[in-house]
Each structure stands twice: as C-alpha cells, then as structure tokens.
C-alpha cells in the first residue's frame, strides 16, 4: 500500500510521465482516499506550471543591450 510519505516522489513521477499503469492505479487509489495528498498533487502541479514564468520578462534596457550587440556583430 502506498503511504502519504511516498506520494511526493510518486506525484513527480506521474507528472514526468514515468509511472507504469499499475503504479498510476495505486496512486489514484491512494488519492481517492486521501484529501491531503490530492491537495499536494494539485498544488505541485500549480507550482511546476509557474516555474517557466518565474524569471519574468527582461527590462527594455536588457533587451536593447542584447539587440545592440547583435547589431554590432552583424555589421
């Protein structure tokens, strides 16, 4: 039986697409019974969805600097 303690690692493997059918079923069964682990998985999904945007956009100055060097390079 899967314990809550195992869920963080299993949840990541699920999101990384690394669980077999049987492992997915075992996790799903645990999640069906356990609200805390459902919440953990939902919030982990949210967090990993935010990671690509965590660094934010570059400032106009940073963009200008890159473009100026690019321009110098091509002339």
């Amino acid at each position, binding site marked *: 039986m899967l314990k809550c303690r195992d869920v963080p690692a299993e949840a990541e493997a699920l999101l990384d697409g690394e669980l077999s059918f049987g492992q997915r079923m075992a996790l799903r069964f645990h999640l069906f019974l356990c609200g805390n682990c459902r919440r953990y998985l939902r919030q*982990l999904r949210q967090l990993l969805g935010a990671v690509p*945007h965590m660094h934010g956009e570059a400032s106009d100055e940073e963009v200008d600097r890159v473009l100026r060097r690019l321009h110098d390079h091509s002339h």
Partner: protein
Amino acid sequence: MTEPLNDADELALLKSGDQVAFARLVKAHHRALLALARPIVGESEAAEVVQTAWIKAHAALKNFEGRAALRSWLSRIVINEARMMLRQRKREVFLDDLQPEGADPLADRFISNGHWGAPPANWHADSPDSLLTREELADCLLALLGSLPPNQRALLELRDSDGLPFDEVCNMLGISASNARVLLHRARARLFALVDHFEETGEC
C-alpha cells in the same frame, strides 16, 4: 504573462527576420536563459554565454522547424555555448554528479506511520499565474532558486522551466538518471515547502 510565442504567426514573423518579433523573443526568455547559464558557468560569464547564444539563435531562426518549443530550442543553444566556454577555460567538470546532503525537505512533514503530520496548507492561488502575481512570493521563489546548489538549479531550469526531456537533461549535464531524480525532487520539494510556508505565514 504575455507570451505570444510558438504561435504560428509569431513564428512566421521571427523566421522572416522581423526585428520587433525578435525583441519580443528576447524579452520573454532572456532572464530564464541567464538563470540557466549561471549555475553552469557562473555569474560573471553567464551574460556573455547568453549574448553569444542570442547571436547564434538569431542566425539559426530561419531554419527553426518548430518541432520543439522555442524556449527548449533556445536553452539547448545556451547549453552548447556554456560547454564551449568551459572548454576554452579548460574547465573539465561541467557539474557535480553528487547526491544532495541532508534530509529531504518534506521528510519532517510525515509521522512514523507514513501519514501527513503537517499536511500541505491550502494555497490561495488557483493557477500557476496567480501564484506569481503576488510579488513578494515571486521574489521569495527567485531568492530560493539562487540559493540552491548549482546541479539542482541547472536540473530544475532545464526540466521544469525549459521543458527539456528528462533523459536529454541528464545527458547534457552529465548527471546519472538516479541522481538527477533525487536532485530534482530536492529542488521541487524546497520550492513547495517555501510556497507552503508563505501561504501560512505571509513570509519567505
């Protein structure tokens, strides 16, 4: 979060050499690419590596086939440039292939029978975007990222920020798959614990 990228029209503009579209591309990805280069070549060289990567990307865009997301494509170019920079500097080690020290950041949240002792807080955010709209939390997350060991940072950037396949990330960084799994879990668990703590206390 405005990201018109990989949109067919935007891609067509980029491939036709549209400079305004290229500026948008730089704006959207420059900081993430810097964050990827930093753990590998260090703070002082990261800007140079990413600048060279932009020059290469600009020249190669017309051949971009759109099979990968632009961000993944750009991050591969950055890793190549980082590798070349290290080779020129005669630095052989890319990153440590070492297991992290200390306990799993979530270990003390469970009690001896394996159940949650301190279950996750109920986060206010209901989407990835709304997680980052609170500036303080976004700053806390960036500060934590900067404090992670370089190998954990590089893995998190490539896998979760740039969306590269796990196996490719392991090959790129020269880290074994079993270690990479542990390292990546450590990094994610630290981020999770930080957001959880912030949701409860309003502080980092």
